[in-house]
């Protein structure tokens, strides 16, 4: 599934009838962005180091987001 399709699922086609639909959508979009950031970071490191099994440490993205105020 492309990134656009992933966002589309939450932004347009899901049947949210709740009062807090907007914040739920925002939370899900953040999950997709986080997923993308982690996958991309791991991909880059694997490319540079050749370490195919490289995995980012848990909570590293959270630390980064906190540091940058994201």
């Amino acid at each position, binding site marked *: 599934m492309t990134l656009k399709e992933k966002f589309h699922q939450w932004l347009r086609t899901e049947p949210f009838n*709740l009062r807090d639909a907007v914040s739920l959508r925002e939370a899900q979009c953040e999950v997709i962005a986080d997923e993308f950031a982690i996958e991309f970071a791991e991909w880059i490191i694997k490319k540079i180091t050749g370490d195919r099994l490289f995995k980012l440490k848990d909570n590293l993205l959270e630390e980064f987001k906190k540091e940058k105020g994201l």
Partner: protein
Amino acid sequence: MSHRNLEYLNKKRVIYRRGPINDKPSEEFEWGSFYESGTNECYELFRSKAKIPTYKSLKWHLYVIWYLNPDMDQNAFEDIARFICNKNNGFVTFNVSEQLLQSMMYEVSLKDLDEPPYNKTRKIIFKDNCKLTVTEKLAIVGKMIGKTKKVSESDIYEAMLYTNDLGKKITIKNLADHFGCTSRTIHRNMSNELKKEKELLNQSL
């Protein structure tokens, strides 16, 4: 593709499958039962290899679990919901935010257990121990439904799931060939929702 961890649900004795309780089959076979007018009473979660691809489907799965396990308390339900929503456990294709999880659990727990969750109509129900291969099951579905000359949306969905289980791409043409009808008949009986489901199943291959 990660393997779906059903062992956890089994260990916790969660009921996620139940056959029809009131509807009687029109015909019974060694491999299972045929319901000419269809039955809505059969709940068989996680029967195909396809993972849960959408929010709507995820909420339905959680609702069915809540319905099939009336003795389950709120804490046990939360535990199961969290497990299913964790992408690493192989049930869903997407990660679920904490906020969405909380909202879903709240909504599901408000549902009236006397009212069965909406369910797709099924005409053919295979026995768990029937030992047929997916190809053989698909052939039976095509033969039995073809005989009735009425291809419904649920029949198409059923064939779509088996085709996906075989690792094959679902096309209108192969569905039409399967039921011995025209592509137009398939198009006519496919809602937009089912067309979207077809795309999602094909993407999961």
